[in-house]
């Protein structure tokens, strides 16, 4: 079983799509890399840490992007961001069955912070434009660096997020919080705390992630196919936003006083909440059925 967590972005993408179907746009040989890194004496990558292209999933045409966490933590720079925005806008022309985003990103790349921040904003606008055009956008999150910063926001603009337990999703990373607010606020070395706050299981129980899968490329592929088969036209109506608004209000009301994820899981009525992190995914899903927020 091939681990999604350990694989490179390229391996994930090739393993996720139908075999032999992936065609890369602006591949490494095009050498579209960051001019800014070079200027700061920092090594650049031929694909600027993101692979974009088209392929088939379950026989249906899709556009897909994969961020490489091993290169600068998957952080978004000018070129990296423009490749993702361009791909999303391509969906407006090609009308694929879906756009798949294999995210792994610490957020904005500091070496080109302004370009990165604006790029994330453009990605966000583009995601919403694609969805408004009736094309679903699905996020897969199971890489080593998690998904933080602007990409954490962007991910939640999409139709669904599928995570593994090892995946993380948030806005400020634990190290950032520890640095700014102190170790008492968030001890980033307490990895159990980090994962039960930001990891796949909590996101799934909270309703931030639509699905949770074991750490295997094949499991992510199956989940993506599942999403594709059940896909409906994205609903961005006022009614849908109001429903989401109530859901988020409800979350604040129910869990706003909770100090820890375990408190939240307990208030969800889950038995032995402290034991959840140890459960394998099928057992976890069974144990928490009908208990998700």
């Amino acid at each position: 079983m091939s681990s999604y967590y350990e694989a490179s972005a390229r391996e994930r993408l090739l393993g996720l799509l139908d075999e032999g179907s992936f065609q890369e746009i602006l591949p490494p040989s095009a050498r579209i890399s960051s001019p800014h890194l070079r200027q700061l004496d920092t090594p650049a990558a031929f694909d600027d840490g993101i692979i974009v292209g088209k392929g088939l999933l379950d026989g249906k045409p899709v556009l897909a992007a994969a961020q490489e966490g091993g290169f600068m933590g998957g952080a978004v720079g000018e070129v990296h961001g423009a490749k993702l925005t361009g791909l999303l806008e391509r969906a407006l022309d090609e009308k694929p069955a879906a756009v798949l985003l294999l995210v792994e990103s610490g957020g904005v790349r500091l070496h080109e912070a302004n370009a990165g921040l604006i790029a994330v904003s453009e990605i966000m606008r583009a995601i919403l434009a694609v969805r408004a055009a009736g094309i679903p956008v699905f996020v897969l999150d199971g890489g080593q660096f998690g998904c933080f910063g602007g990409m954490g926001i962007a991910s939640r603009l999409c139709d669904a997020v599928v995570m593994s337990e090892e995946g993380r999703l948030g806005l400020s990373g634990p190290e950032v919080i520890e640095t700014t607010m102190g170790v008492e606020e968030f001890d980033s070395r307490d990895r159990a705390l980090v994962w039960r706050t930001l990891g796949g299981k909590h996101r799934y129980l909270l309703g931030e992630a639509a699905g949770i899968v074991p750490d295997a490329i094949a499991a992510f592929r199956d989940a993506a196919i599942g999403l594709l088969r059940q896909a409906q036209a994205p609903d961005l109506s006022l009614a849908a936003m109001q429903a989401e608004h109530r859901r988020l209000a409800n979350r604040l009301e129910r869990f706003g006083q909770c100090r820890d994820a375990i408190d939240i899981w307990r208030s969800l009525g889950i038995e032995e909440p402290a034991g959840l992190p140890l459960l394998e995914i099928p057992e976890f899903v069974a144990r928490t059925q009908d208990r998700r927020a």
Partner: protein
Amino acid sequence: METLVFDYRDGKPVPASNRPPALVGVVGSGNLEVLVEAHDLSGAARVEVVTAATGFRPIWQAVLDDFFNRHAPSNILISINDVGATPAVVSLRLDQAMEAFKAGGAA
């Protein structure tokens, strides 16, 4: 950062020179990416290295000499972005990249 270029002659032709490029590895600490492309270099082969670790030209030379003794490719351009990978990792990636290239590009 340092850019190093190495040229090799008298290699053996790699069959079917219109193969798609192959890329292996990641530009992360202690690692490197290796891009192998068919390139008409009149029978020569060229390696272009951009590395974050400066001052190691003789070691690159020795690693690449051994690589060419193993594979002896011609009409090939190998481009490397390196973040201080050890020679062991460099040799491994070079071998993997050649293998992927001969297999048709997929990493």
